């Protein structure tokens, strides 16, 4: 009769050697915080929209981060179907979660901005808002699908199929949203500021913000990926060590 699994072999290195502090993530968070400070305190207030325009330093880069994350999911889906490497599947999962979170933040910020500027919490006639919402639906569907399947091989396969089909879908949503009548309704107040004609301090804040958020995206995906690695290792240990 064998004794418990932990006495048979020591836990794998990946669980033990992991550093306690995730430096990359810390640096990323710090740089985002720094950009916040710069945006709020050290960048001039925009003339037409007032203080709420400062949301834009965060809103745009978050959207970019979301697109990067979703793009990673789509690409790793293709890689997984081709190579059957479970690391690709784990990366797809990590990116999808980060993407879902970022998209939610983008919509929340967009909604606040819309309320202040346009007086309405949601604007169907803003194509970008609609696009973000539908993209978010796709990512949520992806995560729910993953949650509904227990077998890792099946989960990887199905998610990859959805990931690729989702990627194919995006251009169609984009076209549809931009073509609907809705967006031709007269906008009550002036639309977003044009980027090229920004004064240099604002431009710099933007660029710093892009850099900081890209770093945050990568850091979060990496952190979530490592959680996935540990989870899978634990599951494997349970499976091989658990039975008699």
């Amino acid at each position, binding site marked *: 009769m064998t004794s418990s699994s932990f006495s048979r072999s020591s836990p794998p290195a990946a669980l033990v050697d992991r550093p306690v502090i995730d430096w990359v993530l810390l640096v990323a968070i710090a740089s985002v915080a720094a950009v916040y400070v710069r945006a709020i305190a050290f960048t001039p207030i925009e003339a037409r929209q007032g203080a709420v325009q400062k949301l834009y330093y965060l809103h745009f880069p978050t959207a970019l981060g979301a697109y990067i994350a979703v793009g990673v999911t789509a690409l790793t889906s293709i890689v997984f179907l081709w190579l059957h490497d479970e690391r690709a599947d784990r990366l797809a999962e990590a990116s999808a979660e980060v993407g879902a979170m970022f998209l939610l933040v983008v919509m929340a910020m967009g909604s606040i901005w819309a309320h202040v500027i346009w007086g309405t919490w949601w604007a169907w006639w803003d194509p970008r808002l609609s696009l973000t919402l539908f993209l978010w639906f796709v990512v949520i569907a992806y995560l729910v699908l993953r949650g509904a399947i227990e*077998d890792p091989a099946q989960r990887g396969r199905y998610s990859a199929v959805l990931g690729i089909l989702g990627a194919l879908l995006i251009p169609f949503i984009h076209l549809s949203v931009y073509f609907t009548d809705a967006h031709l309704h007269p906008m009550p107040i002036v639309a977003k500021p044009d980027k090229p004609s920004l004064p240099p301090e604002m431009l710099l804040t933007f660029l710093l913000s892009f850099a900081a958020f890209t770093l945050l995206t990568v850091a979060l995906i990496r952190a979530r990926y490592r959680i996935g690695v540990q989870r899978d290792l634990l599951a*494997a240990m349970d*499976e*091989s060590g658990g039975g008699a």
Partner: protein
Amino acid sequence: MSGVSRTFGRRRAVDGVDLSLDAGDCLALFGPNGAGKTTLLRVIAGLLKPTTGSVRVGGRELRSDAAARGQVGLISHQSMLYRALTARENVEFAARLYGSPEPRAAALRALERMRVADRADTPVRALSRGLQQRVSIARAIAHEPRVVLLDEPYTGLDAAGGAALTDMLQLLRAAGASLLLVTHNVDEGLAVASHAAIMLSGRLVRRDACATLDARRYHADYRALVLAGGTPTALGVPA
């Protein structure tokens, strides 16, 4: 088939199985629950892709060659029938899937062999479990396959049904088909088979021709193997 193994995640359900069957052979495959027998059957049927190794029928690779698949018939735990359709419609559909030249006639013939032709036009849901099993068997052999895979086919059959099945298996063997019969019941298996094999923890540990076996000794050996449950080498049986 050669070197077939099938892994689920980290679990090796079937491990390095080499098996070949000649025309007219009937191999009874015994083994405890979880030994991998059903998985092996599903791999041979083409439902699962082998992680390593290949399955060939008449020299043709099963997974890639549709003609090879056309030579196989599968009988498993589930009936694979459509309850809303009649027995005849179910069997005829199967015959057409395989491209039988005369599907209606083939279907009727199969139903007659399984002695259920009198209920041919009853919807399957109105049939008892035993009769459904007979229709399911008819469905599997309507196209007169060269290889028949059977997973616990006697389950649910009454004496008459069991007799019909045994007769049918003899007929198929006489026509040159090869049969692979997975079962718990050693007596049942030995009664119809020409060869016997035992599977344990995914590996094929023993294969004999039935003619050389003494039934009582085989029973005892089998029980010992199953109770020991260890690796083949530990039992002194060549791997």
